[in-house]
């Protein structure tokens, strides 16, 4: 499955557009609960635990989006975008969306 955030893939052309696909995850980010992060909040620096949480969420959201594309029998997802938003009660949503297409090799 080809996944890009451009609307083209060099050497290939779009044979069929399957439609919009997306995946999202919501994660709780209550930093106050985490002691190590609490210390970092006093002195500053990277919150590695939260970066890892973010990476996991992003991977999960993207794999859900790719699963949707596979269901539609697409072989690529183009123009992928991310959107993050703070939901109430200290949670944040990561939303990944793109267009699932069927790509074929460019003739000639």
């Amino acid at each position: 499955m080809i996944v890009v955030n451009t609307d083209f893939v060099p050497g290939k052309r779009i044979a069929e557009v399957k439609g919009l696909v997306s995946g999202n995850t919501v994660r709780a980010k209550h930093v106050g609960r985490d002691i190590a992060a609490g210390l970092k909040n006093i002195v500053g620096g990277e919150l590695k635990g939260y970066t890892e949480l973010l990476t996991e969420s992003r991977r999960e959201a993207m794999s859900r989006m790719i699963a949707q594309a596979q269901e539609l029998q697409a072989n690529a997802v183009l123009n992928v975008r991310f959107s993050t938003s703070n939901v109430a009660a200290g949670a944040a949503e990561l939303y990944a969306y793109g267009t699932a297409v069927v790509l074929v090799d460019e003739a000639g």
Partner: protein
Amino acid sequence: MDHDTENWIDLLFNIGIPLFLLVLTYFTGRVIERRHFQALDREEKALSGIRLTDLGRLPPGTRVRGGTMVQGEVVIACDYYRVFAGSLKNLFGGRIRSFETLLERARREATVRMLHEARRAGANYVGNLRMETCSVGGKQDGNPSGVEAIVYGTAFTLE
């Protein structure tokens, strides 16, 4: 407990400790930030061979092959002093430089990580750059505990 001791304890907890934290985190914050900026300068120099644009289309005359999505992300904490300085600025208005540097560090760090992933994929051109930032944690109506940045694009190999 007699009155004097109570007063001293009061003073210690209400003024002494916050003041100590402010002074401590002012200095630790500056050191951490300076080191981070130096590291960023080094990394960006090492990765300067990779062309970076936010163009959706390839620049005219460019031929590429490949095409894989790359991304980098980071979450950076606000320290005690930064939050205090920010609240003070909120009273009087104006640029909050302490938060400006925080956001700049987050974006540049996320970009550097994305470029590392592009390099690992053997790419030398990253296009369609997009950036997302978000505040992390903290009380609902209080100051954020940190800021997160996601930077993503598509990596190609120039022919």
